[in-house]
C-alpha cells in the first residue's frame, strides 16, 4: 500500500522529461523500420537488448535511454559499431540527421528518457564572460581528470579512453553529459543544470578555439611532447651544430 502511494506520488511529482514532442507517429514507425534493419541484430527486435549465454549482453537494452542517447550515439557515428572493441569510436555517421531523428523518436516512444537538449542550452553565444569562467571551474572539477584540461582526451584501463572533445558539437557534448555514454558517468540536469552544462561547453570551445599562444602546441598533450621536442630538436639539432663546429678546425683544409 505504502509502495503504491509512494509510487503514485512520485509519478505525479517527478520531473517529467520532455519526450520528443515534435515526433509524429510516422517518425516513430519510420524509426522502427530503420531499427529493425540496422540495430535489432544486437539490441533485439524490441530494443530490449540481447543477453549472451554467460549473462553479459550482446547489445544493451535501449528502453528508457531516451532520444538524447540515440542522437549522441548515432549522430557521432559511434553506433552502429563497425566491430567489437573496448569502446565504440567516433566516426562518420551512417544515418542522416533525418534518420537519426526518426530512430530517436522510436526509442523515445518505448519509454521516457532524457530528450535531446533544448537549443537554448546549446547556444554558446548566450554564455557571458562570467558564465565561461564558471564553466571552466566546473570543467576542471568534473571533466579534466579524464578529458584533459583542454579536452584533448585521456587514457583509461583496458584500451578504453576518454575521447577528445575537439570538433564535437555543443549538442553532442550536452547529450553525453545527460546520458553518460560508455565509460562516462551521468551528469543529470539535477546535478549540473542545463545552464551550467552550456557554460562548461562554452569554456571548452573557447579554450579550443583560441590561438595557440606561444607557438606549436603538440596537441595539448603536455610534458611528454615537450620532452620529445627537447631531445629531438634541442639535443639533436645542437649535436649537429657541434659536429659542424668540430669539423671546421683551424687547420681543416677546404679545397
Amino acid at each position, binding site marked *: 500500500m505504502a509502495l503504491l502511494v509512494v509510487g503514485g506520488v512520485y509519478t505525479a511529482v517527478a520531473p517529467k522529461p520532455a519526450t520528443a514532442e515534435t515526433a509524429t507517429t510516422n517518425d516513430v514507425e519510420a524509426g522502427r523500420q530503420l531499427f529493425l534493419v540496422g540495430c535489432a541484430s544486437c539490441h533485439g527486435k524490441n530494443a530490449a537488448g540481447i543477453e549472451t549465454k554467460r549473462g553479459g549482453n550482446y547489445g544493451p537494452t535501449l528502453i528508457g535511454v531516451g532520444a538524447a542517447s540515440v542522437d549522441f550515439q548515432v549522430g557521432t557515428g559511434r553506433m552502429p559499431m563497425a566491430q567489437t572493441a573496448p569502446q565504440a569510436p567516433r566516426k562518420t555517421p551512417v544515418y542522416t540527421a533525418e534518420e537519426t531523428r526518426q530512430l530517436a523518436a522510436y526509442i523515445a516512444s518505448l519509454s521516457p528518457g532524457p530528450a535531446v537538449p533544448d537549443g537554448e542550452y546549446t547556444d554558446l553565444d548566450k554564455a557571458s564572460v562570467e558564465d565561461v569562467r564558471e564553466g571552466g571551474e566546473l570543467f576542471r572539477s568534473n571533466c*579534466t*581528470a579524464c578529458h584533459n584540461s583542454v579536452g584533448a582526451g585521456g587514457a583509461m*584501463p583496458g*584500451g578504453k579512453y576518454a575521447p577528445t572533445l575537439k570538433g564535437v558539437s555543443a549538442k553532442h557534448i550536452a547529450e553525453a553529459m545527460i546520458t553518460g555514454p560508455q565509460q562516462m558517468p551521468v551528469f543529470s540536469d539535477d546535478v549540473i543544470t542545463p545552464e551550467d552544462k552550456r557554460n562548461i561547453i562554452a569554456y571548452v570551445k573557447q579554450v579550443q578555439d583560441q590561438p595557440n599562444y606561444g607557438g606549436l602546441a603538440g596537441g595539448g*598533450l603536455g610534458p*611528454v611532447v615537450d620532452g620529445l621536442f*627537447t631531445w629531438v630538436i634541442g639535443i639533436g639539432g645542437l649535436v649537429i651544430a657541434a659536429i659542424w663546429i668540430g669539423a671546421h*678546425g683551424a687547420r681543416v683544409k677546404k679545397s
Partner: protein
Amino acid sequence: MSTTEQEYTPIQDTGFGKKAAGPVEWLDDRLGLAGVAKKNLRKVFPEHWSFMLGEIALWSFVVLLLTGVFLTFWYQPSMTEVEYQGSYLPFNGLEMSSAYKSTLDISFDIRGGLLIRQIHHWAAALFVAAMMVHMLRVMFTGAYRKPREINWLIGLTLLLLGLVEGFAGYSLPDDLLSGTGLRFVDGLIRSIPLVGSYAEFFIFGGEFPGDEIIPRLYMAHILLIPALLLGLIGAHMLLLVFHKHTQWPGPGRTEKNVVGYPMLPVYAAKAGGFFFVVFGFLAVMGALLQINPIWAYGPYNPSEVTAGSQPDWYMGFVEGAVRVMPNWESTIFGSTVSWNVFIPGMILPGIFLTVGMLWPFLEQWITGDKREHHLLERPRNAPFRTAFIVAGMTAYAVLWIGGGNDIIATKFGLSLNAITRFVQVGFFVAPVIAFMVTKRICIGLQRADANRILHGYETGVIERTPDGGFSERHAPLPAGSQYTLTAHDRLPALEAPAETDGNGVAAPHGRVAKVQSWLRARYYDGALDKPTVEDVHHAEEHLSGHDGHPVELGDEFQGVSETGIPRVH
C-alpha cells in the same frame, strides 16, 4: 713555410697594440694577471664534437640565468588569493594565487614575457638533457677514470641539483599541472618510513599544500640552488683546466700531452660562437614551440587534476616507476609503509645515483687499473662498460614508457594495462637483452678493427680471376690509422688469486680477492685483444698477394669513385 711565418705582425707592433699597451700595462701593474692569462689563454684543448656536449649544458645555464633574471622582475612568489582581471578572458574574475596570476601576467600582459618564459623553460629542459648526454659521453669513453673521479662526482651532483632546480621552477607557477607534480613529490616525501609525515610538515610548513611552499621553492630556485650550481660549475671547469682535457688516441697523442688548438683564438671563437648557436636555438624554440601553457591547466586546486599530467621529462623515469609499481603496502606497529611509493619513488632513483657515483671506483677495483688516463677509450674497446651503460639507459628508457603510458595508450590505440605490464616485465628483462646485444656488437666491431689492421681496408676495387671468381682488393691501412686503432691497452692476463700465502695459510682477504677476480673475468669476458706486432708481420709476409689481402696500391691510389673506378689512375 718560411714565408707564412713572416705574414703576421706581432700584436704589440700593430696600431691597436701600440695604443692598448698603456692601459694594459696599467691593469697588469694593479692586477698582475698577465702571467696567469698568458699561460691560460694559450691552453690547448683537443678537438672533437662530443667534447662540446657539456658546453650545451653550460650555455643553457647562462641562458637560464639571463632569462630567469627577467622573470623575477614580474613574478610574485606568494600564495595569497587574488582575483584575476588580466587579459586572458576565460579566467576573468577567477580567484587564484598571486604566483599563478603573475605568471599569467608574464604570459599575456608583459611585453615579451611569454617568449622569455618559454625560452627559460626550454633552456631548463635542454640544460638537464645536455648534462645527461655529456655524462653519457664521459661514461662511454672512460673519461671519468683517474685522475678525474672527483670531477665525475661533481658532475653527478650538478645533474642532481639540476633536477631539483628544474622541479622547483616547474612548481612555481602554481598551476594545476605543477600543483599535481608538487602533490606527487609530497607523496614521495611522505612515503619515507617513520619520518615521512614530519618531513612533509617541515618542508610545506604544515599540511599539503599550505601557503609556504611557493615562497620556499622560490628561494631555493633563484638563490640557493643556482648558487650551488654556479660554484660547482666553477669547480668542474677549474678541474677540467687543471687535469687538461682528455683526448682521443691518435698519432702524436700520448698520456702526457694534449694535441689540439689553443684557447685563444681558436676555442674562444668556437665556444663563444657555440654560445650564440645555443642561445639562438633556444630562442627559436621559445618563439615557435609552446611549452607549459599554464593558462590551459588553470589555477591549482587540490581537488582537481587533469588527464595527461606528467612531470617534465627528467622526472619522467620516477613517474613511470611509480605508475607501474604493484600496490604493496604494509602496516608495521600501526603505521603504514607505502612500499608502492617508497621503492619506485625514493629507492630506485637512489640506486641509479649510487651506482653512478660508485662506478668509477667500482671499475677501478674490478680492473685493478690504478694508472692515470688522459687518452679516451673507444666504447667498443670496453665491451663490458659499454654494455653496462646501455643496459642502464634501457632500464631508464623503459621507465619513460611507463611515465608516458597514458599518452602512448591513446595515441597508438594500445591498452594502458598492456603497457604497464610491458614496463613491469621490461624493466627487468630489457636491460639484460640490451647488455648482451651491446656486448656482441662491441666485440663484432673489435673484430672488424682487427680485420682492418691485419687485412687492410676495402678499396672497392673488385677483381675477377681467370676462373670467374670475384674478390675485393684490400689495401694496407695507413700507418696513422693503424696506430689509432691499436693505441689502447692490451687485455691484462687473468690469474686466479692465490688461495694461500707462502706458508700455506689461507691468504688474507681471500674471499674479497675471489669476488674481485671473478668480476674481473666477467669484465674482460669475450673482449678481443688487439693484434700483436707478430700478427701484423705474419699477415704482411704470408698473406699479401692472396685474394682479399692487402696489396700495395701506390701513393697515387685515392680510393674509388661510386662507380668503382679508381679516382686517380
